[in-house]
């Protein structure tokens, strides 16, 4: 983990998302898929906390050596300011942070499932898996066309790709969960990786447990510091020896976890569980809290 003042090389819009590429060789050299960076907000702002973003790309070689790219939704809390940042500005960056996705040693066929900006770290992972000679298939989901992250890049990185949108504006109408069994069968997936909404991750976790497919998931939890100081981003994780569980920090022990070890009920508390998507598509039904 390093803290650097990193120059913004460029910024661009990617559909509904924003991307920033930084010159940060000390960080870029060490980054692996699943890890994240922490960016300080400017001084004098009412909102103080750093913001944390999964890394989408890092380049160790070639003309882009020493750069890293992260992607965010400018509508997210506090990210409006970041969307206004211009090339050659400097950002206070800490990284790389967190545990990365592990690569399978022997198993070959990997199915990568992502929703929305969860595709950013997943595409980085796809690239690394490919470089290790693994087969990569993808299921990518989003609310609509605008929120499907780099679909063409997804096609290039994968053997097969299924794109799912809630409104059917790109690919098939539905959620990633609708095509998961089919995708597993067609690709012969031996390992599943995922980055998505919590409720989706939980369903994928149940699916993986049922089929006994090993999986790794990048989760999101409210992080105040991102560097292990504050203990606010904890996830209840079963101990390896099964003797109980611990509230582990997503920033230092995650954000990548083995979903079979997450106590989903405990973690998600009273959040309503997502129901399967009906064939006619998504009637957006929100359960009334309380």
């Amino acid at each position: 983990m390093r803290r650097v003042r990193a120059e913004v090389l460029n910024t661009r819009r990617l559909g509904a998302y924003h991307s920033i590429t930084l010159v940060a060789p000390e960080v870029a050299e060490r980054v692996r898929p699943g890890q994240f960076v922490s960016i300080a907000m400017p001084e004098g702002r009412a909102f103080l906390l750093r913001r944390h973003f999964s890394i989408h790309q890092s380049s160790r070689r070639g003309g882009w050596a020493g750069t890293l790219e992260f992607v965010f939704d400018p509508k997210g809390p506090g990210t409006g300011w970041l969307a206004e940042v211009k090339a050659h500005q400097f950002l206070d960056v800490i990284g790389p942070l967190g545990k990365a996705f592990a690569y399978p040693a022997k198993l070959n066929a990997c199915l990568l499932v992502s929703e929305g900006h969860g595709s950013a770290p997943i595409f980085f992972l796809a690239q690394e898996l490919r470089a290790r000679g693994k087969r990569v298939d993808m299921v990518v989901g989003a609310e609509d066309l605008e929120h499907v992250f780099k679909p063409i890049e997804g096609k290039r990185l994968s053997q097969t790709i299924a794109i799912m949108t809630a409104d059917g504006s790109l690919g098939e109408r539905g959620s990633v969960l609708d095509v998961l069994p089919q995708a597993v069968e067609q690709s012969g997936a031996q390992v599943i990786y995922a980055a998505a909404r919590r409720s989706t991750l939980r369903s994928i976790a149940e699916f993986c447990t049922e089929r006994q497919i090993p999986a790794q998931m990048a989760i999101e939890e409210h992080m105040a510091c991102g560097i292990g100081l504050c203990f606010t981003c904890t996830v209840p994780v079963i101990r390896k020896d099964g003797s109980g569980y611990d509230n582990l920090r997503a920033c230092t022990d995650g954000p990548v976890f083995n979903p079979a070890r997450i106590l989903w009920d405990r973690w998600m508390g009273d959040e309503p569980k997502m129901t399967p998507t009906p064939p006619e598509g998504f009637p957006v039904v929100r359960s009334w809290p309380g």
Partner: protein
Amino acid sequence: MKHSLAVDLNGLRFAHPVLAASGCLATGHDVPGLVDLHKLGGVVSRSLTLAPLKGAPTPRSAETPSGLLSAVGLQNPGVEAFVEHDLPRLQKAGVPVVGSVAGSGLEEFIRVAQILHRQPGVVALEVYLSSPDQERGGEPVYARLDRILEIVGAIARLSSIPVFAKFPPLVPDLVGTARACVRAGAFGLTLVDAMPGLGVDAARLRPKTAIPVAGMSGPALKPLALAAVYQVTRAMPDVPVMGVGGISNGTDAVEFLLAGAWAVQVGTALLVNPAAPVEIARGILDYLREKGVGSPAELRGRLRVRGEQG
């Protein structure tokens, strides 16, 4: 003129007056390399209980303008595991440790303090009086003066090292409570603890943190903390007070010293900037040089109030 940042709190010495506040520096063994432990004036430990505590469900934090709401629920490894696994790293860095004592009732407070006060490297205890008192229906200890005195008094009697009492500025008579703590045996006070704060997520009709009423920290707390430090140190100029609440830079720290603090603690700022305590100490030194003042102690209580002498 020679300037020194060293402070002496009636015999309790720190190389400089900026400590890391409780709960804002991981646990000990896991302090990230970005924090220069040996450059801190001191470290206040996470609040420790007798048995390990898993803490509250998530979400545990939410932002509020100029502040942070956090409800960790005292997650900590328990005092024995802390002594075994975490304290050695702090001892190795040579940083003085203030052990923060929590408990669900009188007995637990006493037993935690008994273990902590005789550990090498632990130079003082801080009694976390916002702990929910299970013997009084879960209300915070600070809600009742008799309970504060019972707990602070018991710890002060057994402890071989100085004891600080820490509470938010919520008690009905702040100066009276502080004075009573000192009479009960407290060596000093840590002012202030986080204030209760509620974040509301209107879209989801839910509180923003799983434990609805969280602790509010950060710059929003600073004027409240300054007022508490000012009032208490005016009333008891000889009692060491550590000021804490929204200190983010050297100027903030100097403000606390001028208001009467003997030393300061940095919490929320550390979460944003792991180098904050070191930068704040440097900021104090710059101020001493600029004003031609020899040490932080000479700033203490130097606030010029209209109608007062000096």
